[in-house]
């Protein structure tokens, strides 16, 4: 099961971010940071992804979209909230249409605060998410074995 750690595939969704964090997520793919070194691929397809990266807060309009993407991802999967808006709603917290952070809609495993998040912090967060992913995979395997 250790292969999950060696090939985490990502799907990135922009909730209602100002695009600051999104640019930093995409910066991780550039030659400078080159996260493909670690086998990380930006799939753009929930059915192929293991790690769900969300930037920006959740509002009434995108809550359903986020829930759908989450439900379409096959187990085991982890969710990482990227940026202060995704972790708590940030400065948009009190807005009339904002529900709050990502955890207002789906369970979040890793919080990566920052405005905007540095690419180093994103990579660090994804590495931390892989630890959670391993635990979930082990839990899934033991559930299968007992069933």
């Amino acid at each position, binding site marked *: *099961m250790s*292969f*999950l750690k*060696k*090939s985490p595939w990502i799907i990135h969704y922009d909730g209602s971010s100002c695009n600051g964090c999104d640019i930093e997520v995409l910066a991780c793919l550039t*030659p400078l940071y*080159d996260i*493909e*070194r*670690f*086998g990380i*691929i*930006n*799939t*753009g*397809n929930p*059915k*192929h992804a*293991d790690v769900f990266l969300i930037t920006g807060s959740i509002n009434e309009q995108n809550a359903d979209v986020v829930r759908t993407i989450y439900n*379409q991802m*096959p*187990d*085991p999967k982890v969710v990482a909230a990227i940026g202060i808006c995704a972790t708590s709603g940030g400065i948009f917290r009190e807005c009339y249409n904002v529900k709050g952070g990502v955890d207002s809609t789906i369970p979040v495993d890793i919080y990566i605060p920052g405005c905007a998040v540095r690419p180093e912090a994103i990579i660090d967060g994804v590495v931390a998410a892989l630890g959670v992913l391993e635990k979930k*995979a082990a839990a*899934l395997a033991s559930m299968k074995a007992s069933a």
Partner: protein
Amino acid sequence: MKTALWVVAWVVLAPFIGGLLAGVDRIITARMQSRVGPPVLQPFYDVLKLFGKRGNVVNAFQNFYMICFLVFVIVTGCLFFSGGDLLLTIFALAVAGVFFVLGAFSPNSPYSNIGAERELLQMMSYEPVLIIMAVGMFMVTKSWHVDAIAGFHQLLFAYLPGVFVAFLFVLTIKLRKSPFDLSMSHHGHQELVKGATTEFSGPALAVIEIAHWYENILLMGFVYLFFACNWIAAIAAVMVTYFIEIFIDNTFARLTWRFTVKSSWIVAGVFGVVNIFCVAFLIK
């Protein structure tokens, strides 16, 4: 006995060589983009991971079709590497392709349906060249059998340079490389997401990937036939061909299906058919 050895070698070794080839491909691609790239064994990590994931299914038949795709690709390779009929190999490969298209049609997702339709158009583009290749090899060697073609004492490439150019053109389609990666790209984030494989997850996706490795090795076998009289030159030619394909992949943007069909038929006509005519007049 020798035939059996070749078939066993194909079934057992082809996925390993194909996976390594995919790993080397990813490293060379990364270096061309001034990146470091993943480890050479990355494709194996990906596939082993996918086998550990849960496979979500939309349609009860979708995974069955993809297993048929894998089985028929393996059968096609067995026909080829046992020295069987080249024409039969090409048609068996088409059957495998049809199973892939059926699998892509079955989940009723707009992305995978458009991917399946594009896959059909791609098949329409490359099939004429594959048949011209078989006909050309028959005209020179007077045999349809792969073992006789591989055992031909002269360099086939010297007789069929035009056919080889046409084959190189459609090889880009078959290897699913840009600019002809219309139905299913190696990279997500395209206008069709992942095209034909959008709805496949977990083990089914791993099966598709392994079938793709088998297919790549089989296609490299076709390249080998053109240079088969000298095995060292043939292996060098296979490597150079694959490098050219990676280079094309990294330098061209994706083209439309109209251009794909038109250009591949024009190349098949200009290089392939003209070459065949020349051979017909020169070799009595």
